[in-house]
């Protein structure tokens, strides 16, 4: 037994609440307030995982977000892969498993890989498995590499809350600097939001010595937090500020430990104060990745917060002053501690009972599954069950970097510090390079200066002061053994050297080539040593090499946080019909069509194809009822309305008489058909654009754009009335007879209401508009009525329809009916190249003298070339099945198959008793009667090009 729990102490743990959880199948004991890591340490579990590539045994390194090694998969209903054991609270019954280890971390069966490490350096896999095909090797290699495992069947227990929040000052970090800044901001009358990723505030004050305003640090922390809470400020513990985005939007992820998904906060402060502290760096020596080698500061945190003593015989190796307090504290509780400092002079006095070796560094560590000793650069060997290292401090300036803040290299601190100020962001405390509490507090003063003067006094440090002496100890070439730079990605000094040799000397290339600084920890401990090594190899300074780009998130954020409530149908809400429930009770089967939820057919789920065919056949026999409420109804009103629709439509519309309708195209400026539909002229200055159901919002936006750009406010007014009105369609030879039974109060006589005309009537006191337009090819009436009054009308249509053997049809049957007639659906029977001429409508291009959208594009070389794809009908030989939609018309050029167009719509017509199809075929309009080959999934069949209309080409049924 080496690491152990002390009998007393531990500010974070509650010894009255023991807990038990499992790690790799074994039971681990702990107390409330433990993290998984502190409990594992207390139980002397040294090996907690295996490394990414070589499957090396790895132990706990740190005590916070920087942890590169101790990742665990949490199982159960709150399953999370790759959780840092150092930040995950231990709780009763939790099931944790080490990552990248089979069957467990201690006896991983892929551990043999490490013996071949010298043959698999950086980029080994890229270079080796190229022939014959990477994909043949990929599954096995992927299975061996990697970290945690995602459970594909896991579903979130709920949706994450997302909260938008505004405040004057957002303080990131509740250590001494953050607390001081928050208190001063509060004293200036500003609203403060204080976030900290730990469960309890205080930051380094939780384990480092300090006395503030004459009080112990812990007391000062509590008083400050209480004062802020009383002042009504928002304090968010267990919350990580993971990103700063444009215009100083800060993203926070708040954790809950009761099973609730995390909460995403979007905070827009006037000023951001970054007080995120600093992260301790490792030291370079051979086998510096062995379990039992920890960050010195982490060991102090485990001691003072969790009463965990990380070893009995401890070597503390350092290049800076901060490890001296650690060595002293460990010696005080009875550990045998030896301090090795790289410096010869300028260091603090050695703590009591701690022998100090000056001017020496560690050359190597030894041990198999945990460290058992170290050898110094002069050959001296010390036995040790734990090695603590401090290679200096890397300020946590990630968020400052994300906000495009420039960094400045500090020789004195051997670190990058914030450079030129960024508007709206101040960096304070250790993140700004401050070391002593006095410096921290002085720096916190001006953090929010742009927003006001504070009345609160500056806190004063009245206790011992930390010093920041440091002699850089970067990894260098030529050292013996394998020296780890990046623990998480198994990047060693040799890998960086290889990258340099192959000219991946840019820091961004270094990262991609070696994976240095990738994955869940994003190089929080490794980036600086890595780029300092690259600087040394290439004869540059550290700032000349520079850092990789800082990007959000600072720590991993669950996708559930970003998704929030936008899951499932809420991700893209469907539009619904006013009569949806009525249709459901009639056995409608609903599908989404262009954003609308509409009845596909009314035959239940059993035999959809037969129901659809039945609806399409009966619709031609007597009368069909169809809910066409999705059809666009965009009103264009105003003195310039006629000129406006002329400009928007390809066809001249201003010559339309009030009370009449005209079919036409809208084009894009590149001449392509954008939408088709019927335009209704209600009166001199009022039109209704009846656009395709799925294009309503796009057409509306387009009308608005041209209105505002070209016509102006007073000229035209546009009102989208689509949702206000339901449109019920009555179609078929007996449609007029059925309509006559309703008594709508308007003449249905063909002289008064001919095809392409509208009439006004009323139903149960509500105004109805009856339009004689047809998408079926049969005599049809579209009745538009207030959406909330449509239900009785629909009911009466169905009731009265019984006498005529009326059939209610869904969209699938309508698609068959319109395809029989050769009526197109834009975007289905046309694509992004289809010009009006390709659909056989060339008149307006030739005849129109007035300007319209897309006009010039119809006179280009491309528009006039003779091998364009044109709309045709396609017939198959007697007895054959319908062509597959998407099948290509093919031809042979020099013996090779080439596409000459494709099938856009294809159905079995129950009325005609044969398939009907539409397609876009090269020069199709001039090739009627020609038989071509079509191919679909390798199968070739014949089709004959015909006119698009296969049913009632003379159009007699419109008037029958």
């Amino acid at each position, binding site marked *: 037994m080496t690491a152990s729990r002390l009998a007393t102490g531990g500010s974070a743990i509650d010894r009255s609440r023991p807990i038990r959880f499992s790690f790799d199948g074994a039971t681990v004991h702990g107390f409330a307030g433990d993290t998984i890591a502190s409990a594992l340490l207390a139980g002397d579990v040294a090996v907690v995982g295996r490394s990414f590539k070589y499957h090396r045994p790895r132990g706990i390194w740190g005590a916070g977000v920087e942890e590169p090694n101790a990742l665990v998969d949490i199982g159960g209903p709150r399953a999370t892969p790759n959780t840092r054991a150092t930040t995950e609270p231990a709780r009763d019954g939790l099931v944790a498993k080490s990552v990248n280890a089979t069957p467990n971390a201690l006896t991983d069966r892929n551990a043999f890989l490490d013996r071949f490490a010298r043959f698999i350096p950086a980029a080994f896999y890229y270079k080796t498995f190229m022939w014959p095909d990477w994909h043949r090797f990929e599954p096995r290699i992927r299975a061996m590499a990697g970290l945690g495992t995602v459970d594909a069947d896991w579903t979130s227990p709920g949706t994450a809350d997302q909260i938008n929040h505004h405040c004057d000052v957002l303080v990131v970090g509740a250590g001494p600097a953050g607390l001081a800044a928050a208190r001063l901001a509060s004293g200036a009358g500003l609203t403060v939001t204080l976030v900290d990723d730990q469960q309890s505030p205080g930051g380094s004050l939780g384990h480092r010595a300090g006395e503030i305003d004459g009080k112990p640090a812990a007391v000062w922390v509590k008083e400050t937090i209480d004062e802020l809470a009383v002042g009504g400020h928002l304090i968010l513990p267990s919350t990580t500020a993971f990103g700063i985005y444009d215009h100083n939007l800060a993203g926070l992820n708040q954790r809950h430990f009761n099973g609730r998904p995390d909460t995403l906060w979007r905070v827009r402060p006037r000023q951001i104060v970054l007080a995120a502290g600093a992260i301790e760096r490792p030291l370079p020596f051979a086998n510096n990745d062995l379990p039992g080698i920890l960050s010195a500061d982490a060991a102090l945190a485990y001691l003072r917060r969790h009463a965990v003593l990380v070893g009995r015989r401890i070597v503390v190796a350092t290049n800076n002053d901060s490890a001296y307090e650690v060595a002293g504290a460990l010696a005080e509780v009875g550990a045998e501690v030896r301090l090795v400092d790289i410096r010869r002079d300028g260091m603090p006095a050695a703590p009591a009972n701690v022998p100090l070796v000056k001017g020496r560094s560690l050359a190597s560590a030894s041990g198999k599954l945990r460290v058992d000793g170290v050898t110094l650069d002069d050959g001296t060997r010390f036995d040790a069950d734990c090695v603590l290292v401090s290679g200096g401090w890397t300020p946590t300036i990630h968020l400052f970097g994300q906000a495009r803040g420039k960094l400045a290299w500090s020789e004195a601190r051997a670190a990058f510090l914030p450079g030129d100020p960024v508007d709206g962001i101040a960096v304070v405390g250790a993140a700004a390079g401050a070391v002593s509490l006095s410096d921290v507090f002085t720096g916190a003063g001006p953090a929010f200066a742009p927003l006001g003067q504070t009345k609160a006094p500056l806190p004063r440090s009245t206790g011992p002061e930390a010093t920041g002496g440091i002699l850089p100890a970067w990894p260098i070439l030529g050292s013996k053994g394998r020296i780890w730079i990046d623990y998480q990605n198994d990047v060693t000094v040799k890998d960086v050297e290889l990258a340099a040799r192959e000219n991946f000397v840019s820091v961004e290339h270094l990262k991609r080539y070696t994976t240095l600084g990738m994955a869940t920890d994003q190089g929080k401990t490794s980036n600086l040593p890595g780029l300092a090594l690259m600087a040394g190899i290439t004869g540059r300074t550290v700032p000349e090499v520079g850092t990789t780009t800082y990007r959000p998130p600072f720590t991993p954020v669950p996708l559930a946080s970003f998704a929030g409530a936008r899951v499932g149908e809420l991700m893209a809400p469907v539009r619904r019909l006013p009569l949806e429930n009525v249709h459901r009770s009639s056995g409608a089967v609903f599908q989404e069509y262009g954003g609308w939820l509409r009845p596909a057919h009314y035959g239940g789920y059993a035999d959809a194809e037969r129901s659809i065919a039945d609806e399409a056949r009966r619709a031609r026999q007597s009368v069909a009822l169809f809910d066409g409420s999705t059809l666009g109804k965009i009103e264009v009103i105003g003195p310039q309305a006629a000129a406006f629709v002329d400009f928007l439509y390809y066809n001249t519309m201003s010559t339309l008489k009030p009370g009449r309708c005209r079919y036409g195209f809208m084009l894009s*400026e*590149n001449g392509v058909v954008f939408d088709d539909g019927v335009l209704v002229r209600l009166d001199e200055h009022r039109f209704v654009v009846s656009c395709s159901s799925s294009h309503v919002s796009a057409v509306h936006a387009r009308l608005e*754009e041209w209105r*505002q750009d070209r016509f102006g406010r007073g000229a035209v007014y546009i009102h989208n009335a689509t949702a206000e009105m339901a449109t019920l369609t009555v179609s078929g030879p007996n449609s007029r007879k059925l309509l006559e039974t309703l008594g709508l109060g308007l003449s249905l006589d063909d002289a008064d209401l001919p095809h392409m005309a509208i009439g006004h009537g009323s139903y149960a006191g509500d105004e109805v508009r009856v339009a004689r337009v047809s998408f079926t090819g049969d005599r049809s009436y579209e009745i538009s009525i207030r959406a909330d009054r449509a239900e009785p009308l629909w009911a009466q249509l169905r009731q009265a329809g019984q006498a005529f053997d009326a059939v209610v049809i869904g969209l699938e049957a309508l698609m068959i009916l319109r395809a029989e007639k050769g009526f197109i659906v834009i975007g289905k029977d046309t694509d992004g190249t289809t010009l009006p001429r390709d659909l056989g409508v060339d008149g307006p291009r030739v005849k129109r003298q007035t300007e319209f959208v897309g006009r*010039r594009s119809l006179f280009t070389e491309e528009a006039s070339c003779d091998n364009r794809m044109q709309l045709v009908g396609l017939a198959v030989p007697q007895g054959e099945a319908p062509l597959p939609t998407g099948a290509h018309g093919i031809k042979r050029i020099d013996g090779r198959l080439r596409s000459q167009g494709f099938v856009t719509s294809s159905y079995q017509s129950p009325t005609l008793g044969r398939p009907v199809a539409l397609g876009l075929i090269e020069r199709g309009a001039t090739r009627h009667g020609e038989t071509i080959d079509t191919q679909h999934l390798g199968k070739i069949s014949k089709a004959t090009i015909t006119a698009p209309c296969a049913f009632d080409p003379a159009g007699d049924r419109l008037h029958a």
Partner: protein
Amino acid sequence: MQLFPCPFCGPRDETEFHYGGDAGNIRPDGADVPIDRWANYLYLRSNPKGAAREIWVHMNCGEFFVMERDTVTHKVLSSAALDGEHVA
């Protein structure tokens, strides 16, 4: 996420806006516009580094407007209605 000032609604989240194109890209009328000119109008964009004048539409109120933005810093320099009457 950026905050854009709609001249009619004030500062709003960028997700409420759509980009409309370069401001000042005047449409040439006529079937006989020189083809280069028409192609410029249709396809050629200036894509400046730094200050850019752009048309945006605030989807919530439906109004198109001119916004000047710095494409490097994403700072909004000005925002005004098409007729210049409303200035945010």
